[in-house]
Every structure is written in C-alpha cells, then in structure tokens.
C-alpha cells in the first residue's frame, strides 16, 4: 500500500528490520487491536514469533495490546539490543 492518509505507518527497528527486510511499511490497520496486528504480522514473518522481548509502540508510546488502532496511527516495533 502506498503512503497515504488511508494507512498506518509501521516502523521496524533492530532485528525486526532484518527479519522483515523492511524499515517501514504502510498498511490499513483501522479497527484492529495491537495484538491482532502483531498476530497477523507474525503469520507473514514467522521469525518474529521467536522474539520473546519485543515492544510495540503506538504514536510514540507503549500501550496495552488490546488498544484499537485508528487510521493515521504510527506503529513501531522495538526489540532490545545489547551491543556496546
């Protein structure tokens, strides 16, 4: 889907970028919960399931997984990283 007001921007960080091969993605997620989004994304990229510690942010804030996504909301997948 092309970037437009009728979509949601999804940002990938850390290893999620490597797993999906994407740094960003535009999808229409209106009406879906964060949990449903995560489930659907995992079906597409099964390796995401292996991440035991993965935070999902909505509009720059961590929110409960049952929160419903509205059009225009920005989502980010942020796993912990350990290098130094």
């Amino acid at each position: 889907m092309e970037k437009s007001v009728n979509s949601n921007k999804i940002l990938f960080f850390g290893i999620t970028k490597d797993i999906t091969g994407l740094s960003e993605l535009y999808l229409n997620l209106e009406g879906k919960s964060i949990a449903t989004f995560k489930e659907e994304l995992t079906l597409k990229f099964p390796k995401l399931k292996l991440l035991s510690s993965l935070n999902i942010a909505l509009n720059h804030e961590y929110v409960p997984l049952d929160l419903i996504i509205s059009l225009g909301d920005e989502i980010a997948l942020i796993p912990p990283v350990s290098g130094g």
Partner: protein
Amino acid sequence: MQSLSIEEKKRYSRHIILPEVGIEGQQKLKSTSVLVVGAGGLGSPVLLYLTAAGIGHIGILDFDQVDESNLQRQILYSTNDVGKSKAKSALTHLTALNPLINFDFFEERLDNHNALDILGNFDIIVDGSDNFQTRYLINDACVILGKPWVFGSIYKFEGQVSVFNYNNGPSYRCLYPTPPLPGEMDNCSEIGVIGVLPGIIGTYQANEVVKMVLGIGQVLSGQLLVFDALNMNQYKVKFQKNSDNFELTQLVDYEVFCGTKKVINLNDSISPKDLAIIIEDNLDFQLIDVRENWEAEICKIHNSQLIPLSQLGSKIELISTTKPVVFYCHHGLRSAQAISFLKSKHNFTNLINLSSGIHGWAMEVDNGMEQY
C-alpha cells in the same frame, strides 16, 4: 561544592561562559562522580567527553584487554595498546587528556559480588556494557542503591539511549521486563557494528550525564531514544513506570535470568529426552546406575557411574551432595528406591530419577542400544 582553581577556570572557560553552565555549573561537574561500566565502543566516547568536561571523579571499569579488532570503534585506544589492559590504558590516555580528574580504575568484571560496593561509590552510573546480564545487574544495583544510570546500546546501524531510575522515573525493567533468550539477539563481535555508531550513542550518553548534573534541558527519563544512522531518523518512545520493579531488595543470578546459564530443575524425575539435553549441554551433574554389574555389562548410558542398589548403603560418600544427581536402573523402580533411601536416611535434596529407566532411554533416545 568544590571550588575551581585558576587552571580549571581557564580549561573550562568555554563551558563557564555559557549561561547554562557558569562557574556554578562547572563546580557541579567537578563535585560529581561517575562510573563507566565497560570501556569499549560506548565507554570510549563517554569517558573522553566526561573527562574533558571536568567530571571531578571518574571510575573506569573493564576486565578486558585491548584487541586489534576493537580499534575500529573504541577510540580511547591506540595501536600500541593492543594486548594491554583496557582499564589501565584508558587511565593513561584520560590522564593525559585531563590530569585534573581523580580517576579510579577497576580491572574486573562487574558481578553480584562487587556491583553494590563499586556502584555505591559513585553518583551516576553509565552503561557501556555489551550484554543483557550486565545491564540487568546495573539496573537492579542502581535501584537498590537509589542511583540514576544512563543506558546505551547498539546494533549494527542503530542505537538506543535512555536514563533510568532518575528522579523517581522508570527503570530498565519497566522498558524491557523480560530479557530476550540467548541467541535471539547477537552482539557486535558476532554481527558487526558500524564504527561511528557507538561514538554517536556514547556521546549522547555523556550529554545526558552533563544535563543531569547541570539540571538543564530534558533528561531522557521515561523515554527511549532510538537512533538510525542509515536514514538519520531519531525515534523517541515514552514508557511508564511499573512500581513492582522497585520492590527488589537483592540481586538475582543474571546468567540464569537471561538464560545464559542453564540449570537443571531439581524435579523428582527427568525424561530420557531431557536427560539427553543436559548431557548434550555438558551441564555439571552426576549420573548413577543402580543396577547390578551383569546388567551394566549389557548396556549403559555413557559416563554413568555404577553403584548397585545392594551396595548403596556402603558407598554414600561417592554421591555428590553439591551437584544434581540423576539415578537410573532398568525401569525406574530401583532408582526410585535408592532416592527414597538417600532422602530419608541421609537428607539428600539433589536427587533426580530417570523414571522410565534405561529401557525408556533405549526407546526414546538411543534406539541402537542393546535391550534386555
């Protein structure tokens, strides 16, 4: 607060003329102590900038030696330092940069035995470590001691920065309650990192320290900053404090917590497959066969020690009291008797039964094994 000498006023003049710093701000920097855990990619710029900035007391902690492959990003060291102690080499370079600083150096790994003692001597802790265990250890020690810490972490072209336990703000556990499993995330030595990235992230960390000391700007407390060096995006995300994470009163075993040390659960029994796993993983335990000699001549599990049940009472001293001990026999009955005897008469608490015996082992693990 400590006053400034003429020499210090000259050295820090570009700070002092900033209204946000001034003489008073520079005195605050001088009166502050900061410990940097890990003098590697992140630790290098942190130490260099804090030393240059005039933090009065700086602790350098690193157990490692300088390796040639470090020089691509660990800008504190030069080629001559290869093979030398990082803590000592860092001390030499930093003293040359600013002899007015009071340095402490620790050539050791931060662990449960030394963390509270070492961290306790400093006002602010900066994380320049390269593994999850150390980060959870720093976090918990800082929560117990009531000290703020500046977190930094890198992955390929990306870095994360935050400040934890600052002014009643959230902690690392509030951001990442559970560590990833080993192997889920790799470190720089395994996957590589672009050399300037720790330079950027470490400099951000040093900047947070300076802001905290001076009380200026907005400290990254309750927020995680993610920086992407490829597209130069900077993403900030807010997270909440979970007060449960502040109830802890003692350190835990971080290798177990992060899954880097496998442990044998002292359940009453173990399945053949699980036994095969702990053998494969080279875990430290004792395997005792309580069958008779003639049975062991037919088949046995590799590396097991034969103590027939009939002789067990006279060979108690051969059974470990410190590590887990797995017992087996033909079908699991005699080994259960052995365990019950040792538990009731000799108070053993470390005994596990291979409940399906060597028969189960032959069925599930070693199909080629001779059976009887």
